[in-house]
């Protein structure tokens, strides 16, 4: 940098105008709806509790997620999983909160409160202000932040859009980020949870990623031919149906299976873990009970210690497990997918309880706005 450039560096930053600060501004968000709390309880917490049963509390809980500025998900896991001496070390990504915006103030309040729970929260926990896609590049703050706390007990990819939204040429991309995150799980000896929230309806995918995931699905059927009939029987999922009903649930099921297969293989030659789908929940698309949009998958990943192949054949190595078994379990579990909207809509008592719990997690400062906001939502 030239000397004259250095002189003007000071003024490159957005220097706040000398005026009264913004002050508070608070609003509720989609993740405050009762259906999301239902997902937290049934799809996220229950399998994670099972995972941690029998794990010593001093092993802690390492959590990677995409929390909102209220850190609601983190508060929830702290309340439910870290009351017995277990400490959580979390790494969260939130790129909405910068400077002294109301969102940043909200995040500061939440972080301040969470860190004061020092018996539950590891002091090295942090929120990174980058897009999680940046994890896809090795020499980045985002990648360093994730790798410093890896491997994780829970990886919660709670996306607001589709995991297939990025064009395949995007850089950085969600695909690279997920691959790098999962590569950091290699070598972990205990099982871990992969929680994925993503829209899986076709319009939310980029055109080239649609083709990619369809090829991924085709490869699965090539490897495991018996699953073709199973998919057809359970979901009506055939090549013909995919070609003729691109916007329907057939694609959602296909995408769910293909994404799981990709998640099992993308970390490199292995696969390094067995996948067991513990829960599958969906939101309706445009309030149509027969059309699925957002899908929540809760996958238990169990390390396999798979070793590479000795080309000379001298060493036997660990046998690679049968990935078709995993895929079959996933497909059968998807058949029992829970429509969260329908569930919550039909049970007023449940809805009231979920709302009450959400408000409890949000804390008293949401009391004045929450009830008025949430009454518009049946799920």
């Amino acid at each position, binding site marked *: 940098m030239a000397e004259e450039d250095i002189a003007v560096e000071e003024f490159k930053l957005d*220097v706040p105008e000398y005026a009264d*600060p913004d002050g*508070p501004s608070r609003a509720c968000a989609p993740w405050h709806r009762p259906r999301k709390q239902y997902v937290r309880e049934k799809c996220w917490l229950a399998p994670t509790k099972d995972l941690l049963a029998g794990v010593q509390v001093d092993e802690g809980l390492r959590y990677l997620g995409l929390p909102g500025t209220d850190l609601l998900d983190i508060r929830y896991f702290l309340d439910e999983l870290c009351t017995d001496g277990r400490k959580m070390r979390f790494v969260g990504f939130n790129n909405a909160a*910068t400077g002294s915006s109301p969102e940043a103030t909200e995040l500061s309040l939440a972080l301040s409160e969470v860190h*004061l729970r*020092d018996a539950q929260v590891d002091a*090295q926990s*942090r929120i990174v202000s980058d897009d999680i896609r940046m994890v896809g590049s090795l020499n980045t703050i985002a990648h360093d932040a994730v790798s410093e706390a890896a491997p994780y007990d829970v990886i919660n990819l709670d996306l607001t859009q589709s995991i297939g939204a990025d064009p395949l040429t995007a850089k950085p991309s969600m695909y690279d980020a997920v691959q790098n995150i999962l590569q950091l799980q290699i070598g972990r000896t205990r099982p871990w949870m992969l929680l994925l929230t993503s829209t899986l309806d076709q319009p939310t995918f980029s055109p080239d990623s649609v083709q990619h995931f369809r090829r991924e699905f085709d490869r699965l059927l090539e490897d495991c031919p018996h699953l073709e009939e199973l998919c057809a029987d359970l979901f009506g999922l055939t090549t013909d149906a995919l070609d003729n009903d691109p916007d329907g649930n057939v694609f959602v099921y296909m995408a769910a299976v293909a994404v799981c297969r990709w998640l099992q293989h993308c970390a490199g030659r292995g696969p390094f873990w067995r996948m067991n789908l513990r829960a599958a929940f969906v939101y309706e698309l445009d309030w149509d009970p027969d059309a699925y949009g957002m899908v929540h998958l809760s996958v238990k990943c169990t390390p396999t210690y798979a070793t590479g192949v000795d080309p000379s054949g001298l060493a036997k190595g660990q046998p690679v497990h049968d990935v078709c078994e995993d895929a079959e379990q996933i497909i059968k579990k998807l058949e029992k997918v829970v429509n969260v909207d329908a569930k919550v809509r039909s049970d007023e008592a449940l809805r009231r309880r979920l709302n009450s719990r959400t408000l409890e997690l949000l804390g008293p*400062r949401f009391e004045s706005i929450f009830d008025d906001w949430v009454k518009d939502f049946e799920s």
Partner: protein
Amino acid sequence: MPQDLESQIRGTEAGAQPASTTLRTSSKVLGRITDGIYRRPESAVRELVANAYDADASWVHIQTDRPRFSRIVVQDNGHGMSPAALTHMLHNIGGSSKRSADGIPLGVTNLDDTRLSPGGRRLIGRIGIGLFSVAQLAYSFQIITKTEGDEWQTVADVVLRQWDEPPPDGDAEYEAGRVKVWRERADDPAAKGTSVILTSVRQSTVETLQSKGIWRLVDRGDREPPRFHIGDHLGDGTLREIDGTSASLPWQSPHGEPDEAFQSLVGGVTASYAQGERSPSLKHLLDNYLQMAWNLSLAVPLTYVHVSPFDISGVSTLRYVLSGGVPAAARPLDLPTSVPVSEKFSWAQSDVPTDGLADSFRVLLDDLELRRPLRFEDMPETSNAIKKPIIFYGQLNEDFPGVDSARSGGPLRFSAYLLWAPKIAPIDNVGCLIRLHGASGTGFDPSFLGYPVQETVKLRQMTCEVLVHEGLEAALNIDRESFNAAHPHVIRLTSWLHNAMTRSFTQVKAVAKAERATKSSEQAEQFEADLEAIVLHAYEEAGGEPEDIPEVRLAGASSPSAPVGDEYVFDRSRVLGADAYSGSKPAKEAERKVAAIVQVLAAYGLLDDLEPEDREALLADLATIVRLKSG
């Protein structure tokens, strides 16, 4: 006005709009700040840590998004500030309620002793500009603070006025910033603490913490990258790749515990000498961020990274006590080597108070749990004759008898240690560091308060801390980074230190002389043993016995020339020539070698067939060869 503001703040609990106010200070205080008394980022951070300590916090977390540094948070679990205390602070920058009766109702001062925190710690902060120090770092900041039992927390959003116009002269009030304050319901009424969040960090601060100056020099080829660094942020969250990685950190990641990480940092810096860094300095070894961590850890009241200097054993160090008046010599510590000095003298204690609060005061800077980065054992090895560090303990209890306390400044009490070692690593630890109640803003003074004696080498081998328990505070300048040299306490301390240093250096020289003498004697013994072994070997080879080895004597003018028994006698002058009577070490060694040669030749029976004259001529030639020097 303050009452009104407090009421307005509390009014926001019922839904009123946030209270708006201005940050006010006197021009005098502002002038001091704009003079740049907090020149380095760590100075301002240090003040926030000091505030946390004074608030009886058991931990402080300094969280940055390094190496971006767009956001810096300093959070503690101290008492927090009530709306009244926050109001007082906002309107009285530079006029702290600490150390005054005003602080009692505000919950910042001890009920019984205004020098203490509510929990009984000796207060570090004094002048109330600690929080304002963030003006050097940021354009805007937030405070989130909560007291225990309060169902509400208080939030203050501050935008600082930039230095767009000179402040008025004199004592006039100056508007230094605009503030919005409001109350928020708290998640947990039992929680307490304060967070200071720098929301718009100044570009100059960012550049400093990112070590941009260093990286520019690296780019120009004017220096190597620091041995340890957090990486060079190129913008947009990406980092420069150096040798296949983005950062070079001495601690293991992932899963490095913060205390272990800091030990690794200290170990990495100390070990750099053994790894070829002949003059290891922080500015070469560390980037600015890690230097900040190091300097901060020296400045705040923390325990030592390993053992306290008052708890080290005599196994790895030589220990002396400085007692009695000048010119009394330093006395060896009269204790078994396994017993630390702290068990013998009540004054020889670490200065971190043991009131149950300071013991648990932890400061975390991102991945590092800071401790005093000073090691007293396992010092770098050198070729110096003295292999162990030498530590001197001393104390002063000065009541200035007969002098009015208004003139003397009252009593002055401190304990101290001076540590001499052949190599102090890093060299930044050379000097004298003065602590008040565990804290120090001065850092190491390499001049040792202007030590007047020419001891160029020895001064580079000395590090010391003076731990002040009472007094000296009035001599501390406003920036807490320097002292008023004319204050009686500074004068007395300086005098004590210089005397202590003189006595210490005298003792070091005595130890060095003794070590050299011992070494010389040991070397002579070894030399003799080696020669005897050669001769013995010759007799064994030749089938002789040790008893057969004859005596050899080089006779002088006054000694008999006739052999006694089977001894060999030669004329000293003829054999040794000019060195016959020099008495020098080389001459003595040459004489001994010649005698050994005679014994070896005798073992093989090569002497007895020669005429005495020829024998002497042969030996004279051999002695000449032995004494021959190249060049």
